[in-house]
């Protein structure tokens, strides 16, 4: 078959395979280094982009580097950043959760409803936590125990949870939450200039980072994303871990709902509608593979910086704020095209230099 047929094939599976192949190839000096290489390269690239965004911001507006602006940046992307953490783990495990923004909305509506019924705030928090756990558990059980694809399940619960928010609150708006809570959303932590949501993100990022990169559970998440069957045969409790990931996602999103509500001082049913796409965009920008098995928390932190910085810089340039999706979408496309192009180039170089039998997957099955 002609070689350019190979180039026409959809789904970027070959690049990953090639890397894996290379890692096991005896010709390589260090298997570990080459295994780390793609990840390192991606995060380095992201760091450069992050710096570029800051430079762009400084050039467009003198306000960009002020501490007040950093505060705004953090506040306005806080919830997306927080929800991106559990999403990262879920996508690495080979699943996806599109119900995150609806869970946030459901939590926000519940908070507003119970507050309007004069519940004490502490009791409401307990309810929100339970609600988040239930929402995540429902997703998780449908995916792992019933065996449904998570994409379909969470599209369903995206509608269901948003619908429940609408049932709870109808078209009412609840606002005027008490001052100590509202302050969480709009004021920095005392004596610093860090918004609460950013502090929460940092703490959570450390926790998620440690769990993902330094524990057996974390490694098993990569394993089940790379090959669910192999993970199962290796004795990993795939279903249990995946269920847990969905539960954690539900809980975190529910708490993000409280943050969102306090920040805007409004509980309405359509809070954060459509935000799931931004969360997924950030996670993919972070270099997490949509097919699972690849990605890192450092990447997510950098992607959050790029995302928040760019949104903010565009805001300062008076670019139509609603149209910043063009930039988010563009970044997303670049983030998937660059590694593919790099893999193609690398392959071409490998062919030119070695002229030796190249790993089969590098040539592509079409040549057989």
């Amino acid at each position, binding site marked *: 078959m002609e070689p350019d047929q190979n*180039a*026409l094939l*959809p*789904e970027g599976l070959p690049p990953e395979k090639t890397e894996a192949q290379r890692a096991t190839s005896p010709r390589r000096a260090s298997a570990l280094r080459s295994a780390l290489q793609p990840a390192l390269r991606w995060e380095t690239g992201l760091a450069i982009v992050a710096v570029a965004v800051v430079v762009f911001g400084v050039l467009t507006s003198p306000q960009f580097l002020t501490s007040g602006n950093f505060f705004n940046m953090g506040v306005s992307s806080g919830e997306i950043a927080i929800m991106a953490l559990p999403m990262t783990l879920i996508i690495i495990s080979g699943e996806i959760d599109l119900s995150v923004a609806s869970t946030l909305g459901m939590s926000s509506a519940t908070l507003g409803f119970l507050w309007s019924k004069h519940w004490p705030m502490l009791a409401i928090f307990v309810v929100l936590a339970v609600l988040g756990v239930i929402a995540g558990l429902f997703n998780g059980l449908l995916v792992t125990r019933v*065996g449904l694809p998570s994409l379909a399940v969470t599209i369903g*619960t995206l*509608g269901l949870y948003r*619908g429940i928010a609408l049932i709870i609150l109808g078209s009412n708006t609840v606002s005027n939450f008490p001052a100590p809570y509202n302050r969480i959303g709009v004021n920095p932590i005392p004596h610093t200039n860090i918004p609460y949501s950013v502090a929460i993100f940092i703490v959570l990022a450390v926790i998620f980072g440690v769990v993902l990169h330094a524990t057996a559970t974390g490694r098993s998440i990569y394993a089940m994303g790379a090959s669910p069957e192999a993970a199962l045969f290796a004795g990993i409790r795939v279903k249990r871990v995946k269920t847990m990931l969905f539960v954690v996602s539900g809980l975190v999103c529910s708490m993000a709902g409280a943050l969102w509500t306090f920040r805007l001082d409004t509980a309405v049913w359509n809070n954060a509608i459509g935000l799931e796409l931004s969360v997924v965009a950030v996670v993919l920008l972070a270099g997490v593979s949509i097919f699972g098995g690849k990605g890192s928390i450092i990447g997510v932190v950098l992607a959050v910086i790029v995302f928040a910085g760019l949104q903010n810089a565009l805001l300062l340039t008076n670019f139509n704020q609603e149209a910043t999706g063009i930039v988010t979408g563009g970044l997303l496309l670049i983030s998937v095209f660059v590694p593919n192009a790099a893999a193609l180039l690398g392959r071409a170089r490998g062919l030119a230099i070695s002229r030796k039998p190249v790993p089969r997957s590098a040539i592509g099955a079409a040549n057989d």
Partner: protein
Amino acid sequence: MSAALTERQDPSSAPAGTSSRKLTERVFRIRETGIIAVLVVFVAITASIQPRFIDQANIQFVLSNTTVYALLALGETMVVISRNVDLSVGSVLGLSAYVSTNLFGHSPGIPVPVVFLVGLGVGLACGVANGLMVAIGRVPSLVVTLATLYIIRGIDILIVGGNEVVAQTLPSSFIAIPRADVLGVPYLAIVIVAVIGAGAYYLRSFRSGRELYAIGSNPEAARLAGIPAGKRVFTAFTISGAIAGLAGVLWAAQYQTIDSTAGTGYELTVISAVVVGGVAIFGGSGSAVGAAVGALLLSTISSALNVLGISPDWDQAIAGFLLLVAITLDRGISVRLAAALRKRSSGVGT
């Protein structure tokens, strides 16, 4: 045993013998019968509570509400069958709706077919862009179309600015399109049934249509069998885009006020319709007719809630819940079907 194997291996790509063809047909018939049965039972129950549900006005209302979704579902079906997904349909619809109908304001007297062609062109361009990136760029379609969802909506927002197209600028012949009917059946519904029929026939009986199933059920095997997978997937995305473009013009004729939010969130409803209609979200099975019935079921449900006096606040939760019920049932059916097929095949083998 070998006969049993080939029969089980792939009912969709290889037209091996009449027996496997019949089997395929039966499988597909079962899938559609299920969803049609649900629709009939649902309509019967609602009508027994509230007879007004099946009077002519309400049926017309439901049908005309279904048209746009059913059209979008046809394009989405082709994409989903090939194990891809097109999330950009809502944004394409919005862009096409504004760009095409804005012409009425800019150049009054422009013929309606030209406007449809413009809408089609906008959709085609978006579809080609998606298709090129997925097929040649080898990027997963979920990511590509998630990005183009944003980008196309962003372009739409920039073009629209703060404006909107209002009903006064639209010629009456254009507004009349969704309202015209033949013997009480909306004219548009007839056209759309014909279009979906053509799409279903293509998927079912054309070689390139069958190849979409093959690609969806096993991309690697399809490639090895010499199917030009990239070309086929590209075509599926192009058709989906073109259909979304046309649907945008129809949407404009129906709702008559077009701002930059037109079609926001439609992608999820359309995917719901497709999945409820029995198209497997990971490709390889399903039919255009099933997807259209799925769209019809969703709009029937929301109309039923309305007729039964249930607050429209419940709409979304019920639609989401039904999607979950549909995929759970589908899973149960397909597990049983697989078991039945296995039994059958081993019966044939011995």
